[in-house]
């Protein structure tokens, strides 16, 4: 489409008063983004609007009724006695996931950034869970985390009696976090590795000449220089953590009690298991707002925290 326009008047900027450079650029810009923009409108914005519309209704699927109830679902949201616990679990899960994911990713990236023979083999293996299907990965961990499963079997060899991982509140939360981190930490690891390799070597040499110890070099040189990467990976990881659903459903089904019922799982339960589609939609809106606010806050924070931007 843009091609035809371009061919039409190669010297358009002088010969055609209407098709100025700015106008032609505007047209080209719109044409370039059109597929994406239309897709977002059709597959994101309109559905989101519909979800909001549903959230103002009580939708009884079996009785086939769809009644406008105004803010009633939002009233229910405020009065929902489980919601506080669910939001707490969500916060613990997301925070734990981000902290563990980013620190492990950074640690692995630093290790892989060393001059060691066979380092590519390690890099491949650390990255390998990323390409294993999520379902397979979670099912396997489900086996391993059983009371009489593989993890406790290994611990037993070391003479430790392992906990009943998925049945205790604390260990269940740890389990779902850890399973998710091992699956995906490879991605962040590679991004960090790329960032580390982008740090100019001369800076370290200069620091060594000054006699700065390794840890100080890391804190003063490495961290500031890779801070943009840290910011972006943390945004992606946080947003991703709020969407983790299948893993929780497979491993704990939100239990024991409500201890691992994160918001997206709660939403799923209300809408698809209890058939409260109206209330489920209300929870969707809440989830969307949380994600949006968090992302906005992180984006704002970058000015303070990020030391350097290319």
């Amino acid at each position, binding site marked *: 489409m843009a091609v035809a326009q371009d061919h039409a008047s190669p010297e358009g900027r002088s010969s055609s008063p209407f098709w100025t450079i700015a106008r032609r650029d505007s047209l080209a810009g719109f044409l370039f983004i059109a597929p994406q923009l239309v897709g977002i409108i059709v597959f994101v914005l309109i559905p989101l609007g519909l979800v909001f519309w549903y959230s103002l209704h009580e939708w009884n*699927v079996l009785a086939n009724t769809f009644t406008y109830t105004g803010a009633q679902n939002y009233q229910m949201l405020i009065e929902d006695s489980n919601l506080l616990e669910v939001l707490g679990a969500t916060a613990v899960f997301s925070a734990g996931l981000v902290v563990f994911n980013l620190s492990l990713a950074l640690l692995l990236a630093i290790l892989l950034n060393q001059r060691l023979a066979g380092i590519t083999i390690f890099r491949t293996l650390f990255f390998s869970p990323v390409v294993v299907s999520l379902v397979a990965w979670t099912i396997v961990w489900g086996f391993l985390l059983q009371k009489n499963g593989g993890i406790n079997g290994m611990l037993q060899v070391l003479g430790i009696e392992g906990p009943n991982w998925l*049945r205790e509140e604390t260990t269940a939360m740890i389990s779902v976090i850890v399973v998710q981190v091992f699956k995906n930490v490879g991605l962040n690891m590679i991004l960090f590795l790329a960032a580390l390799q982008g740090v100019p070597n001369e800076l370290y040499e200069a620091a060594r000449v000054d006699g700065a110890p390794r840890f100080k070099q890391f804190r003063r040189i490495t961290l500031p220089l890779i801070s943009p990467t840290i910011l972006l990976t943390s945004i992606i990881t946080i947003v991703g953590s709020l969407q983790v659903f299948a893993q929780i*459903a497979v*491993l704990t*089904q939100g239990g024991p009690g409500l201890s691992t019922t994160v918001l997206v799982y709660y939403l799923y339960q209300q809408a698809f298991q209890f058939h409260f589609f109206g209330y489920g939609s209300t929870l969707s809106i809440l989830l969307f707002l949380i994600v949006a606010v968090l992302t906005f806050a992180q984006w704002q924070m970058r000015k303070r925290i990020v030391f350097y931007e290319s």
Partner: protein
Amino acid sequence: MNYHRALKSAVAALALAMPLGWSCTATAQDAVNLRMTIWSANEAHLKLFNEIAAGFEKDHPNVTVTYESLPFDTYTTALTTQIAGGNAPDMAWIFETAAYDFVNSGALFPLSDTLKATKGYNLEELSASAAERWSKDGKLYAYPFSTSPFAMFVNNDLIKASGAKPPAELIAADQWSWDNAIATASAVGQTGKGGLIVRDFNYQIWQNLASVWNGWGASPWSADGKACTMAEKPMVDALTFIHDAIFKKKAIPGPGENVDFFAGNAAMTITQISRASLLPKENPFAWDLVPLPKGPAGNYALIGQAGLGVMQTGKNAKTAAEFVAYMTNPENSAKLSQFFPSARKSLLNAEVLKKTNPLLSQEQIDKVVISGIATGKVIPGHTGFAQIQQAVRSGLDAIWRPDADIPGTLLKICGQIGPLLKR
């Protein structure tokens, strides 16, 4: 087992399915395609259903019937989501636990008139107790085509190896009580194998524990469904007994322990008799099928039911009802009963049942099947069951630990589900 179930309830639950032949209905005005959602994907089942459909299509040349198998674990969720998506089937199997939801909501087309009008149907043959959950205001809204008693499968090899007495001997000596059953399970449990497994319970599907607590006369809520009775003495006693069996006697595998009876790894399992088909053909073990043990409240039985209903929203509800009448007439009921025990009185005799359950002995059929169907209570159900199930499930998690406060926890659960029951 948890994982599989969980996985599917998690996501497969969203299965909003579409029938294969859905789009072909519009061609001719009279052509009617009826779709029935079912939870079995078993080939033998489907073969029989298709035969029945073919019989109906002979008399109704404009009608075709298709069956759509949805995953067992998440069947109700998937069905409801289809309905929400504007894609309701014409007919659907319904679990006993979800019966109240479907019957009370008005989602189902009343069947009584059609069934009564069908020649030779004999609706009176269906006992009132079997029809109870599926009726409202004297009208039958779904036909209970399967009435399957719970019983106990036993691995006599493991029990003998542990030195305990096999249940058959206990029954002969009139000592088949829960105390003795758990003692046997405990003896096997001490050998490192599993003791007793309440199949599909998995510390999630707690309603299956009714197969135990009914022996104490316990029930989660009152007969009218309005009041929580979980904190009352029978339930406290029953759960204390179960708790001891798990954590003190090692008679029941604890939470997070995976043991499979049908792989030969446990002494006993409580499940529906239809699961006899899971008994291993290679490396078989000496098995037996016995009635549930006697509890402090005496003998009892538990049954699971499945209903077949017609969706009110379908355009062809009348035709669908006629098909239900055909599928469940005496002749086809007899065919169905080889997989799904019928509640029709004429089919509840040892002769018929022996033919349809070749794996079971005459004695097993008499003691377990016939008396089970005759006296059994149906698994607990309620309007809004999914939400109540979830609330109780997460509440009971506090009991499934060695140092549990059982009466306190049950009181708390009643506080949680009280408002839900009253709705």
